[in-house]
């Protein structure tokens, strides 16, 4: 065939594209089904949570990462390993709270919002809210209750996307013995 060989782009880029486009179509569908943006945010978080509780096992099985003994390790693992592995980007960890129980992930480019232009009148929508759910679900499986939310979003005109993680408590009861 006259066309070049590697048709359709390299696999890694395509995976990202397929994920981004499917996610976009999902958000668009949710916005048709649910009138207010808060409900859409909730649905996205819920879906993210369901993914998080499963993807953590894939992450732990695949990347033989060490035990996270404190929140700094967690930040390191999330940004340097997990984000790189699954989204191909490495967010910068910064804005540590004095008690080192809160930090931010700064994303130069958020792969989920590659080509997205929000329609007017949807300021309450948190487009990439699924990421918060994934992080919450995953960390809960390793006995960490965290609060995750977007504080800055390039989609809304901010010059960087910032996800804020706050350590709330260790989930004592769910702690599988031996890891306490």
């Amino acid at each position, binding site marked *: 065939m006259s066309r070049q060989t590697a048709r359709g782009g390299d696999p890694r880029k395509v995976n990202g594209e397929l994920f981004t486009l499917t996610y976009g179509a999902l958000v668009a569908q949710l916005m048709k089904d649910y009138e207010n943006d808060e409900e859409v945010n909730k649905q996205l978080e819920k879906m993210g949570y369901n993914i998080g509780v499963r993807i953590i096992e894939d992450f732990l*099985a*695949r990347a033989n990462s060490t035990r996270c003994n404190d929140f700094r390790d967690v930040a390191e693992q999330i940004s340097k390993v997990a984000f790189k592995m699954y989204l191909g980007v490495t967010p910068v960890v910064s804005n540590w709270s004095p008690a080192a129980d809160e930090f931010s992930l700064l994303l130069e480019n958020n792969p989920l919002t590659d080509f997205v232009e929000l329609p007017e009148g949807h300021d309450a929508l948190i487009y990439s809210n699924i990421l918060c759910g994934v992080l919450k679900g995953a960390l809960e499986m390793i006995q960490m209750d965290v609060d995750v939310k977007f504080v800055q979003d390039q989609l809304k005109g901010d010059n960087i996307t910032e996800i804020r993680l706050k350590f709330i408590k260790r989930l004592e009861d769910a702690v599988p013995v031996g890891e306490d």
Partner: protein
Amino acid sequence: MAIYSVYIINKAGGLIYQHDHNATRPEVEKTFSYPLELVLKVFDDKIVVAFGERDGIKVGHTVLSINGTPAEGRFLKGGRDILETIGMEENYPISIKFGRPKLTTNEKIMLASMFHSLFAIGCQLSPEPRSSGIELLETDMFKLHCHQTMTGIKFVVMTDPRQMAVDGLLKKLYEVYADFALKNPFYSLDMPIRCELFDENLKAAIEIAERVGSGST
């Protein structure tokens, strides 16, 4: 060189998967003349050899069948009491099959949750906090290898004492769990795993480990 069985226990101590690999349990069938030299007794609702060993029949073996009729607890299929049947001279010569009974599912579930608590004790006994918990239990007949993931899933593998490369198998089992249980939309977390594809991949992993791990010893 053998891997005997695999147990997967969820973070609450519930058994979510169990597989007996080569379940070729030795069974011995002999024809006896009166009187029977073996001393039998009722134990845990089964007829068990209490004393006397010959031709491969060992203390602890259970009566599995008499003249081909399978035993069900203390009775034979059809209701005849095993001890009475064996006690009456006119029934001789009599052919009795002895062997190790397979653990029933309930027994496995109970043993799994007991191991879960034992694992916890192992941690409390540890001089330093944050110990890994039990990783190896060793007896003359088998070794029990255990790996608990950070999310609390325990992978337990029972192998022949000389089996090697079991850590590799434990890691592989975790990958199979992540790939074929968690990525299966019909599997819900912490529930028993009943996906055939998971079975297939787990068995394949065991076979590979058995070949690789048999090594030279």
